[in-house]
């Protein structure tokens, strides 16, 4: 702003040149920013509402409790895929969560700051690897020369889940007050007892919500399963992870590429169940996450 030397106070406070234009620019930028936010929320709602409207008609008890029937017949459901998905995600979580928490304990309790930084970095990079590549990796290690299996799928999902849970666990452990640890150490407790008796119980809420977020993330993962647990017999219920297991994401994927409207209806219904499950878990985990964090902070 150019000023013309000494001016009266009234001149200073008066609107400068171009004030009108600046006001208009300001107002329009505010409007644009608001529209952008509305748009993002609208897209979310649009997707959810589409899934609700398209999925609800085909969703009934049979859909959840009956196995698929041969093509052309009426009725049937996707019970086998729901069971398979539950087993795959359950196994993946059982594998990844303990390792993730161990990693988190290592970086925030034992490792030197330098090593901890390196491992954090590696976790971030692991998190950034496209999930289809995780599927290719497990295909190369476990499937090639043999057959697809629930184990292979579960391990692929576990690799996707590991960095998510480990990073959130690290954040929570770092929030546990140092004074608590020091007090326990001063009382003569060994480090491992401090970790198991003081640090982990204090952080338990945060650790659980981190694990829930991990479950929400991998429940919908399709790419890691394409190479590891996608070629399954479509009709029977499988509970044995040494065979390829039917699962919801791959089922939605194959149904979505089919030309038949009946398949599309099933895909929408499966998508409805999946999206409700994932969004519900995400919202719950987020709310609790915030709460357990602020509790640790105070």
């Amino acid at each position, binding site marked *: 702003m150019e000023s013309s030397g000494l001016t009266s106070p009234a001149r200073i406070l008066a609107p400068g040149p171009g004030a009108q234009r*600046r006001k208009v620019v300001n107002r329009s930028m505010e409007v644009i920013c608001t529209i952008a936010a509305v748009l993002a929320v609208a897209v979310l709602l649009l997707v959810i509402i589409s899934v609700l409207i398209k999925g609800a008609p085909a969703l009934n008890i049979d859909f959840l409790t009956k196995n698929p029937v041969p093509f052309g017949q009426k009725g049937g459901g996707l019970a086998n895929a729901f069971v398979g998905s539950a087993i795959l995600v359950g196994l993946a979580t059982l594998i990844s969560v303990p390792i993730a928490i161990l990693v988190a304990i290592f970086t925030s*309790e034992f490792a030197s700051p330098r090593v901890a930084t390196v491992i954090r970095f590696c976790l971030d*990079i692991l998190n950034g690897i496209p999930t289809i590549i995780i599927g290719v990796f497990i295909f190369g290690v476990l499937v090639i020369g043999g057959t697809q299996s629930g184990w292979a799928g579960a391990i692929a999902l576990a690799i996707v889940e590991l960095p998510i849970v480990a990073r959130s666990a690290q954040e929570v452990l770092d929030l546990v007050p140092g004074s608590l640890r020091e007090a326990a150490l001063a009382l003569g407790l060994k480090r491992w007892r401090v970790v198991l008796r003081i640090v982990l119980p204090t952080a338990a809420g945060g650790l659980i919500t981190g694990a829930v977020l991990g479950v929400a*993330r991998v429940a919908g993962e399709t790419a890691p399963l394409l190479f590891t647990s996608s070629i399954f017999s479509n009709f029977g219920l499988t509970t044995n992870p040494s065979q390829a297991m039917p699962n919801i994401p791959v089922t939605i994927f194959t149904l979505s590429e089919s030309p038949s409207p009946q398949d599309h209806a099933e895909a929408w219904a499966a998508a409805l169940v999946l999206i409700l499950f994932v969004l519900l878990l995400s919202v719950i985990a987020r709310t609790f996450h915030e709460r357990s964090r602020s509790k640790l902070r105070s």
Partner: protein
Amino acid sequence: MSATASTAPRPFGVRIKLTDRIGEPLLRILTSLAGLLVVVLLGWIAGTVFYQASPAISRFQLGFITSQTWDSTHGIFGAADFIYGTVVSSFIALLIATPTAIAISVYLTELAPRVIRRPVAILVELLAAIPSVILGLWGILILGPFMGNHLEPFLHSFLGWIPLFGGIPSPFGMLPAALILTIMALPIITSITREVFQTTPTELKEGAYALGATRWEMVRTAVLPVAKPGITGAVILGLGRALGEAIAVTQVIGNATQIKASLFAPAGTLAAQIASEYQSANPGLWQASLLYLAAILLVISLIVNIVARLIVRRSKVS
């Protein structure tokens, strides 16, 4: 411990309990192994992908990257079409997602009433929670037909003289894929940008206001310059997400092996090609070539992610 309370006071460090003697090193070893596993896993993934791809790598060498042929009957493969598709679809996605994410972040940190800031931020982040296969299903059955029947003819009639918008409108193609990728990259970019905006020093903002800046001028002169490195990192992270998405893209892009100027034409990306041919490819050169695509994708996404993390980290430290 209640056990020590009953005995007479003892000097420090005389006797270490048996459980401590086992437990302490045990936990140290277990946790170090877990830490080591993370590092080993990265190398293992890269090693396995490259090993599987090796027949194709030794056969086609680096010419694979520039060759446009993808012919499974004659066993000649090249990645150029897919590299092109990956770059273009991700670029369009970022072109739309970046300004939108910045605008949303401005709204969430400066404009929105305080009560709705957190809920709206959570809603935007929930976009990232939608499984990609569902986004792809929505893409095939709702977004694609809408684009093929309405949006693309509309663009074509106004901008058809630009080659990008020439060609025949279709429900499958580069544009729907790019839009789906936009939806996926948006929440990632927004959440980091918003965090960076929140760390703008209050003195800077108040300084700008004191000089008579309007709200937008304050954002432009105080918030954006400080946030620039953070925004860059966020955009590159969004790029990492867009590059690697396989499922939703393969559902909507049409999986064609061609390079067309028109954004309406079907195309392919590295990740989508792997996902679409995984079952039909028989062991041998075809499969190895798909894994060569995976290796290229892995290298690109490693570089992108490492750069992004370094930038984000640095901007958070400063």
